[in-house]
């Protein structure tokens, strides 16, 4: 039995190394220090050691933070880190989260019992310091845009870490960081291992597809379908992992770019995807029907063949680097290449993911229809 575990561990480590080397996103410095305890490449032991306190680490913007003891009351001011806490089994240690949780379905599924008792600390730009302090936290997690509030909290001697999950790699980094800080390294590793497993599967599925066979995919913006994602955005990487070509790759920029009808006709995408609009802001301002009815787009392949789809929004924003965002990649693959990976298979995998990490039973018919 031990031998089997060791072999599995070696495979897991190799896959991790390959995935790590293959990424192109910028890595934060000094993260190796904190991953020492969880992703040790030298250790042969199958056990993942617990975190030792006091722990000094660097958060995702390079601040050095010391956590004196295991946090029992966690405040998360960002929907991505809150979801991560749920996935790492920290539900019972969460005392307050960001505002508008009723708009995010994942809370209803995974945390309905604590929804009413959770404190509300406002949004990232309008963070409510007093509400946060009223919850008496011993750990606060904030996104980069709230870093000034983080400074104030640190001045008041509340351990605060700042996270910045802008890409898949940074998401993994954040998960490992939170896992280490909250002594839930086992759960963190399970989650990141799962990512690696899925990514491997995806690359296997799509490696047979030739470059010229890869469909052109146009990801719409949230306020108008005359906006799309250029090469450097998360959504672009989503498409390429799923074996597609991002229509917006020809464009420059780090955020949504406006395009004209002519440009869309020139791109002539095979598929058009309508995003989730991050849920807390409501649904996109237009529907698939409106888009398909638009006479100016009638000649686009995607419209002619009816390949205009909404990214499913019933759980999490799968088109952003959220913990279950990996499912977005799987869904996209099933949509683009149903012959290689069917929607039923996807529904099974998604249900299994949510059962394992969020402990609820997903209704597969919401995916398969």
């Amino acid at each position, binding site marked *: 039995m031990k031998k089997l575990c060791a072999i599995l561990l070696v495979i897991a480590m190799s896959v991790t190394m390959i995935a790590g080397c293959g990424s192109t996103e910028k890595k934060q410095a000094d993260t190796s220090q904190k991953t020492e305890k969880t992703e040790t490449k030298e250790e042969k032991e199958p056990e993942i050691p617990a975190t030792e306190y006091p722990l000094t680490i660097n958060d995702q*913007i390079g601040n050095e933070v010391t956590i004196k003891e295991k946090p029992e009351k966690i405040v998360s001011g960002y929907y991505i880190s809150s979801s991560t806490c749920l996935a790492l089994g920290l539900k019972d240690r969460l005392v307050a989260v960001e*505002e508008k949780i009723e708009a995010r379905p994942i809370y209803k599924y995974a945390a309905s019992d604590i929804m009413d008792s959770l404190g*509300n600390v*406002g*949004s990232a*730009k*309008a*963070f*409510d*310091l*007093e*509400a946060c*302090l*009223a919850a*008496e936290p011993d750990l606060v997690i904030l996104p980069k*845009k709230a*870093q*000034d*509030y983080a*400074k*104030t909290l640190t*001045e*008041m*001697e509340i351990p605060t870490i700042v996270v910045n999950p802008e890409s898949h790699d940074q998401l993994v980094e954040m998960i490992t960081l939170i896992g280490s800080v909250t002594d839930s390294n086992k759960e963190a590793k399970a989650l990141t291992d799962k990512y690696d497993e899925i990514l491997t599967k995806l690359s296997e599925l799509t490696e047979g597809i030739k470059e010229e066979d890869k469909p052109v995919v146009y990801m719409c913006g949230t*306020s108008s379908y005359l906006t799309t994602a250029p090469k450097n955005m998360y959504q672009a990487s989503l498409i390429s992992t799923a074996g597609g070509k991002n229509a917006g790759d020809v464009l420059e920029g*780090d*955020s*949504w770019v406006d395009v004209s009808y002519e440009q869309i006709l020139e791109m002539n995408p095979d598929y058009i995807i309508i995003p989730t609009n991050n849920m807390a802001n409501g649904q996109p301002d237009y529907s698939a029907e409106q888009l398909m009815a638009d006479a100016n787009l009638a000649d686009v392949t995607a419209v002619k063949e009816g390949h205009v789809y909404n990214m499913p929004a019933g759980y999490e924003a799968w088109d952003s680097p959220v913990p279950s965002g990996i499912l977005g990649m799987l869904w996209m693959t099933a949509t683009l290449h149903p012959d290689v990976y069917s929607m039923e298979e996807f529904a099974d995998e998604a249900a299994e993911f949510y059962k394992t990490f969020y402990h609820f039973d997903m209704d597969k018919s919401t995916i398969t229809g």
Partner: protein
Amino acid sequence: MNGLQKRRKETIGVFLGVAVAVFIATVVSVCVGKYSISIEDILAILGGSDEVSVMSRKVFFTLRLPRTFMAILAGAGLGLAGSVYQIIFKNPLASPDIIGIAGGANLGAAVAIVSVSSSGMIGIAMGSFVGGFLAVLGVMLLVKVTRSRSTATYVLAGIVINAISKAFIMGLKYFADPENELAAMEYWEMGTLGNTTASKVMAIFPMFFVGFAGLLLLRRQIELLSLGDNECRALGMRLRLVRTIILLLSTLLVASVISITGLISFAGLIAPHISRLALKRNNSLTMCLSGLMGALVVLAADILARLIYSTELPISILTTVIGVPLLIYFLCERGKERVI
């Protein structure tokens, strides 16, 4: 002298009334907040007792007290500056917007938000301060270039600078990233006291004080400026010098406030208006009352901002909600009797 005594009594009454209201509002403001600190605790903290928890003490001194203090400073500063502008531009609708400070500060903040992504509050504060000053300098330069010597030119130049600022801001908003930068810009435009900490208040207080005290000391000159330009000159006022000093002092005052809080609309417009109508005068007493009224309005708005909704609302919403009905009421009053 009966009329004089009656008026004096009325004036004292009004001042006392507003001062008491400000005091009450201060007390309420210090007691309100998501982190509950009871009144007994507050008294204990002030009394120097050790029985209160460390966190309560920290919240009180780092967040609650500076925030209340900043509300008073912001209101007093905007109220005084608004009163000064209404007097020297002889325009009852004048406010810190009129010579472009608000527009310039807005542009400065927007530039800071978009250009230096990790600048945070310090960068935005500095950007808005510099922007406000540059706007006023731009106005003064325009006036000099047109070689006009009249006060009305300042208002026109202010319109020009405001228009330029708005155009640039629109451009920046268009190219900004809607998730982060655009949201931050819109948020700054609505103003908030939520970011106030003791260190920030300390940082701007010297400049605030210089502007505030300077304007109060120059009250006689400001009163004189309510006359036409020629009359001022005939009475021996060195118009260009005095106007420049007053504009610079008021810019210092307003810019130091809004660099911390963002734009707080209406306070600088309505406080002087109410004061004028309450005292039926437009002199240095009105300026002082305007400062007090401004403090009251901003304190009240900040209290409501924290209480009304489950999360904190931007303060300009509340100052507008409080200000507009008051303004409508006073407009009606104005129609009834002959007021200034």
